[in-house]
């Protein structure tokens, strides 16, 4: 997967605001890459461009040499806010994804597939519960099961665990690792997170994101640690400690070095009103 020179701006009250500018980024098949940045750094916008929900103003996203237009058929997305449909049970939520990915499968096979993935994340007892009856951690488990149930080649995770408490977060991180290793093929994962420990625990490479406006990506930092990793390894291993320091330093640089203020392109008020109305 390759991203070349992607930029995006939104119309704001004072004019166009460049949220992302000049982003270059590439991921090899089977890589686990984390994009780390502070709140409101345009990470989610970038994720929406990768997943095809939002069109970039300029630049290209290619997967396997082909330009991405719309949603990639073999990509799954996990959102921060779970995004389950509240009128369906856990099983129906997952089955809907399976149905969309494999419309020719008989219903029974779709249900089997959905059940299998929900059982993998430990929800065999909650198959027929609605999202409102589940805790945050369980809801995100359903969302993860939904993402994996379509046998994705690419997994896009938009701050998947940031709404969860520390303990649930650790369990789910482990489940994510298990699911990735159990998948029949190499799964390419791009995760957006504001949690450095999470990035260190899971990823092969960490890409720091600069601050907006005109956010872009810094040089990737390789994490050469054997997997699976444990939290204690990350605390004590000299390489891990060094990487952590490096990422922190880079992110701090972005915060402290004053970039030239991004020019705000004035636009006519009428255009802004038009934009908002539409």
């Amino acid at each position, binding site marked *: 997967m390759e991203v070349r020179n992607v930029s995006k701006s939104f119309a704001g009250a004072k004019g166009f605001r460049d949220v992302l500018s000049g982003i270059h980024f590439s991921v090899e098949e089977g890589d686990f890459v984390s994009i780390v940045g502070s709140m409101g750094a345009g990470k989610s916008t970038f994720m929406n461009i990768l997943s095809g929900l939002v069109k970039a103003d300029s630049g290209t996203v290619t997967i396997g040499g082909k330009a991405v237009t719309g*949603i990639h058929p073999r990509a799954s997305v996990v*959102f921060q806010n779970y*995004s389950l*449909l509240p009128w*369906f049970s856990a099983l129906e939520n997952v089955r*809907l*994804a399976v149905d*969309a990915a494999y419309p020719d499968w008989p219903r029974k096979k779709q249900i089997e597939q959905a059940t299998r993935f929900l059982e993998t994340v430990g929800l065999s007892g909650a198959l027929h519960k*609605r999202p409102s009856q589940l805790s945050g951690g369980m809801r995100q488990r359903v969302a993860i099961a939904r993402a994996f149930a379509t046998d994705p080649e690419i997994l896009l995770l938009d701050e998947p665990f940031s709404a969860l408490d520390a303990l649930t977060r650790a369990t789910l991180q482990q489940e994510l690792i298990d699911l990735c290793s159990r998948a029949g093929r190499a799964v390419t994962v791009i995760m957006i997170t504001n949690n450095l420990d999470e990035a260190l625990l899971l990823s092969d490479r960490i890409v720091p994101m600069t601050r907006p406006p005109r956010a872009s990506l810094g040089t990737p930092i390789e994490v050469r640690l054997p997997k699976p990793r444990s939290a204690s390894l990350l605390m004590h291993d000299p390489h891990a400690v060094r990487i952590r320091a490096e990422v922190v330093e880079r992110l701090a640089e972005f915060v402290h070095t004053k970039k030239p203020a991004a020019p705000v392109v004035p636009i006519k008020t009428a255009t802004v009103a038009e934009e908002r109305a*539409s």
Partner: protein
Amino acid sequence: MKDRLARIALPIVGILAVVALWAFMSTTVPDLPSPLKTWQDSKVYIMEPLVKRGEMDQGIGLLAFQSLIRVAKGFLLGALIATPLGFLLGLSKAFNRMFDPVIQVLRPISPLAWLPLGLIVFQKSEPAALFTIALCSMWPTVINTMAGVKAIPQEYRNVAKVLRLTGFQTFTKVLLPATLPHMFTGYRLSLGIAWLVIVASEMLTGTPGIGGFLWQEYNSLIYAHILLCILTIGIVGFLLDRMMGFVEVRLRSV
């Protein structure tokens, strides 16, 4: 216990107070029948609600049933037009801009104004009545469905997109369930209006039903029966609203 007693006793006190006022009024207004006279004159219609003696001379239950059937037909016709219209208005901005002014102008038109037009177009009283009921009652459904569609969180639309649902799946699995509670609020309000319109349309067309009976008894100077009809219309309308309200609450709790 005291609370429960109050909950039962206070409405009864309220009803008795209104009946007392009615009784007092009937002593001063010469043609207004007293509650007792209303009861005596209407007893046969209430005690034998399903007896048919003539085209209009029927038990109150039978009359109300005929009106309800007419309301159901008109309401369903209206809902059949209003629901897809509401969806289109909510989904398409161009469509919304095109037809919003038309809807705002058509909405406040009284059934009394539509009915003659219906009679001209359809030449018969029954379809004209249905036309009027449908046309007057559909607006709350249109507007609530539209608002419901517009209020669907972007989150759910994104789910539909990333799961690559087909247009049909997006509609049945995402848009429709998300809008359903709003739609039912519209249906409840629409049914209320349909019931209001029925009396006017039956009066003007003289079709058998609670409104037709009311008008006939006015012309026959049997004023007690007017009060009987008014009370029946009120009670049936109240029950209809409660019924729809019950469904609506159940849908909202999902």
